[in-house]
């Protein structure tokens, strides 16, 4: 990987620069429009944010020349993998920005800071996912964290939101502090902060012979921080509480953005620092003396099982989706275990499809809350008679989350399971399959409530209020789940491209 200095790095850094300038511009727009009418003022901050995100997105989409470089003296990587993730984060951010516009929870609060925070997290997620230096990993991870702590507590007169925020920051600070201690030991063991130098230090024979226990301790400590972002066991405790307390658009964002970035850090850290690629770049071999593959496998199995079992008991929609997102983290991790380019490809495909199905499900939660004013699953009874199309849409999203063919969620699961089976880990795929079966129970429970419950009450039902903006967004989020099969070839090409460029690591 070519190491670039500051000036020559800038040309690969346009989307990030655009986002940083956008967030500052939005901050200024918010201040100068202070005396205008609230509606006008909101337009003045939403429109610049959207323009900034779209410009950044268009730059990220066209920057597809096949290069890979270490920008800013090997602080962040620029490669296909990173370009893909950049697009994922910006798209998520655009959706969430639109989610906030008509959400009842956010009706009474001013949106200025929320948008600035959202833009900050977006750009920090890009930095986090592309970091190839221990200092950068930690700094970007903390920037994401600090901004999301505030986003969770954005409803400052609401007790739940505040409590969620406090839990999040205390738990987060402990996890990242633990990670930091691990990183400091890793620096001591290898004498470097650069992941590639760490890899070559760990490959030397004398270090391998003597560093076993130290490396083990380091990995456990570092996984505390990454696991906190991915919400994998045993660092998932915060997840149900924080997801419940945060405003729902923020919850939707947290369930996709930081999770995907967490997995990106996992790949960069383990594949970049603790594994060396084979000649043809299609697979990796572990370096150092710790079998972290087994470690990740164990985490994956426990995470998906606890997530699915936990979800069975939930009566609150947001808590249920929180546990479901924990379970999905377990599935995604299966792709990281196999140490092959195909595994990374399967992970990327899964995360892209997860973005659409999960954001869609949360949007339905927002829509129902706007009308019913509740997150309890029992209040979803009889939605079918009030909004048949919405219910069918939710059905498609839930079937996709379940992994039922022909929806996109099935393709994602099938891809990741087949990669695992190809790697000779059949039993691992079986556990994944069993977990999907458990998962079907609670997703079907929601559907049953929506379709069947409350249908025996004779009272005439009024149609559910659905804002045109949300209807359009739902359509955009649901359609990829249906035509996933048609897009598959394209998705395969895209992920293959990004995986190929990762090989340079």
């Amino acid at each position, binding site marked *: 990987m070519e190491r670039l200095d500051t000036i020559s790095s800038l040309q690969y850094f346009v989307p990030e620069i655009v986002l940083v300038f956008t967030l500052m511009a939005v901050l200024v727009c918010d201040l100068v429009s202070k005396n205008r009418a609230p509606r006008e003022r909101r337009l003045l901050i939403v429109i610049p944010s959207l323009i900034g995100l779209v410009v950044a997105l268009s730059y990220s989409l066209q920057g597809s020349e096949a290069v890979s470089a270490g920008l800013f003296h090997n602080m962040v990587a620029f490669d296909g993998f990173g370009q893909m993730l950049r697009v994922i984060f910006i798209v998520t951010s655009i959706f969430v920005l639109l989610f906030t516009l008509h959400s009842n929870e956010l009706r009474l609060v001013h949106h200025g800071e929320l948008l600035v925070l959202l833009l900050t997290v977006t750009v920090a997620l890009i930095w986090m996912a592309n970091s190839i230096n221990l200092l950068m990993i930690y700094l970007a991870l903390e920037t994401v964290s600090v901004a999301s702590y505030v986003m969770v507590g954005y409803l400052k007169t609401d007790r739940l939101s*505040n409590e969620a925020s*406090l*839990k999040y920051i205390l738990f987060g600070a402990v996890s990242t502090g633990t990670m930091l201690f691990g990183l*400091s030991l890793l620096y001591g063991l290898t004498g470097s902060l650069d992941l590639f130098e760490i890899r070559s230090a760990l490959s030397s024979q004398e270090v391998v012979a003597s560093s076993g226990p130290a490396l083990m301790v380091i990995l456990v400590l570092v996984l505390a921080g990454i696991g906190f972002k991915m919400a994998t066991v045993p660092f998932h405790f915060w997840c149900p509480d924080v997801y419940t307390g945060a405003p729902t658009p923020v919850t939707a964002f947290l369930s996709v953005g930081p999770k995907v970035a967490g997995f990106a850090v996992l790949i960069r850290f383990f594949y970049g620092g603790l594994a060396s690629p084979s000649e043809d770049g299609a697979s990796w071999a572990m370096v150092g003396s710790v079998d972290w593959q087994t470690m990740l496998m164990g985490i994956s199995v426990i995470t998906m099982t606890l997530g699915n079992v936990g979800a069975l008991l939930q009566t609150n929609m947001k808590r249920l989706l929180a546990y479901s997102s924990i379970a999905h983290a377990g599935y995604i991790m299966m792709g990281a275990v196999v140490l092959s380019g195909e595994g990374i490809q399967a992970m990327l495909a899964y995360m892209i499809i997860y973005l659409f199905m999960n954001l869609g499900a949360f949007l339905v939660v927002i829509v129902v809350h706007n009308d019913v004013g509740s997150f309890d699953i029992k209040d979803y009874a009889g939605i079918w008679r009030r909004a048949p199309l919405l219910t069918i849409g939710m059905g498609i999203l839930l079937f996709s989350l379940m992994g039922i063919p022909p929806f996109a969620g099935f393709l994602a699961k099938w891809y990741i399971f087949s990669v695992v089976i190809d790697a000779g880990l059949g039993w691992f795929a079986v556990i994944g399959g069993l977990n999907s079966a458990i998962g079907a129970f609670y997703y079907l429970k929601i559907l049953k409530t929506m379709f069947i419950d409350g249908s025996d009450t004779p009272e005439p039902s009024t149609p559910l209020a659905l804002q045109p903006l949300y209807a359009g967004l739902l359509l955009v989020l649901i359609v990829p789940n249906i035509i996933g099969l048609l897009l598959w070839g394209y998705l395969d090409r895209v992920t293959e491209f990004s995986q190929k460029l990762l090989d340079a690591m």
Partner: protein
Amino acid sequence: MISLEHYLIVAAALFSLGLYGVLTRKNAINVLMSIELIFNSANINLIAFSRFVSGDTEGQVFALFVIVIAACEAAVALAIIMSLYRILKDVSLDEASVLKG
């Protein structure tokens, strides 16, 4: 002569004390103080390694950023505690339990 291991053991002890505080204290501000102990222990590690192992200032630069991050985190955490205090009028982790883990 004071060796690298001396510093590392003190840092490990400080880390464990911080962990102990995090696990046992109920008051949010007290948990925050324990977290600061953890950050400090990592910084001692970084600076000690910077001197004894890598022989350059890389670790010191990292430690500098850690101090910046710790300050940001403390400021935001205290703001959240203030905001919650206005609602609860008593900051205690036990109180913050409408949400059940």
